[in-house]
């Protein structure tokens, strides 16, 4: 992929530029995390409409707090916001549910039923949709705590220490959840490799 001059500007610098009044700087930041954050949200909430609402809420919060950003990593900060918003969203739906409380509970999100068509044409979509459905089905079957760690690493590209910091858990806990998630996914998606 060809690198543009914007790729050399750090996330923190882009956010700072936005906070100083440069609106297009935020566009660049959104573009950088568009796919990763949206995929993470799709994996966490299981449907496009909610994922889009939450995606918007997350960036609205980033906009409102841009001036106060002082974390080491923008990415970790963004996912901290994202996670809090997902927790709030779930509490509104199920007041007694929390991401940390459902350690090994099987998730019941009807993710496969809620996949929507993408921009690709019908022929191109067949194979991709099949893989998407398999992957999403496998990811949806993971307990929440494993799924969020797995997706933060694979989709968000967060390091394990960033994940541990974002979740407020020891590094070994994050590694353990990742290991469990990977073991299950490898079993479910084994034939795809």
């Amino acid at each position: 992929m060809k690198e543009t001059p914007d790729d050399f500007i750090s996330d923190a610098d882009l956010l700072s530029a936005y906070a100083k009044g440069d609106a297009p700087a935020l566009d660049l930041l959104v573009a950088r995390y568009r796919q990763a954050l949206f995929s993470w949200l799709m994996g966490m909430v299981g449907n496009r409409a909610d994922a889009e609402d939450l995606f918007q809420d997350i960036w609205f919060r980033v906009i409102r707090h841009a001036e106060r950003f002082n974390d080491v990593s923008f990415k970790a900060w963004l996912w901290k916001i994202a996670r809090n918003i997902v927790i709030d969203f779930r509490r509104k739906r199920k007041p007694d549910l929390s991401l940390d409380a459902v350690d090994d509970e099987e998730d019941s999100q009807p993710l496969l039923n809620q996949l929507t068509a993408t921009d690709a044409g019908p022929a191109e979509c067949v194979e991709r949709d099949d893989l998407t459905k398999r992957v999403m089905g496998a990811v949806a079957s993971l307990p929440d705590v494993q799924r969020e760690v797995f997706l933060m690493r694979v989709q968000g590209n967060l390091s394990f220490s960033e994940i541990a910091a974002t979740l407020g858990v020891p590094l070994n806990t994050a590694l353990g959840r990742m290991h469990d998630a990977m073991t299950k996914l490898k079993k479910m998606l084994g034939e795809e490799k």
Partner: protein
Amino acid sequence: MKTTLSTEMLEKELETLAPLVQRGFSGLGGPSDDVLRAIRNEAVAHLAGRRQSRRFFLHLVRPLAAAAVLALFLGGVFQHHVTQRDGANTRVIGHLLSLGSTHLSADTAEPSAELANRLLLIQGLDEEAFFITQEESEVL
């Protein structure tokens, strides 16, 4: 047997799994253009709102600052005026008091001597006879 997990070990395992999952997720696409537009609008509106509130603040602060300066100036002038007037009054009062005390001391000294003489006379005594020395009283 439980093995100790390491970041390197998991990263190595991920090398095969991650691309597959990422390919699967790429089929979902990203957020719609409407969502991206809404975020852009919010970003612009937020900046505009901030600028406006800053401008509003300046619009509010400038007249307030001018009014405060004027109030301070007027307060200073008034204070000066009051101080001067009080000073003049004090001087007048001081002058009147000093005049009054002079008159009082002149007027009251005489009547009190007269009153003493009158009291002595009423008692059948006179001033010169009443106040006698010890030798005179022994002689008497």
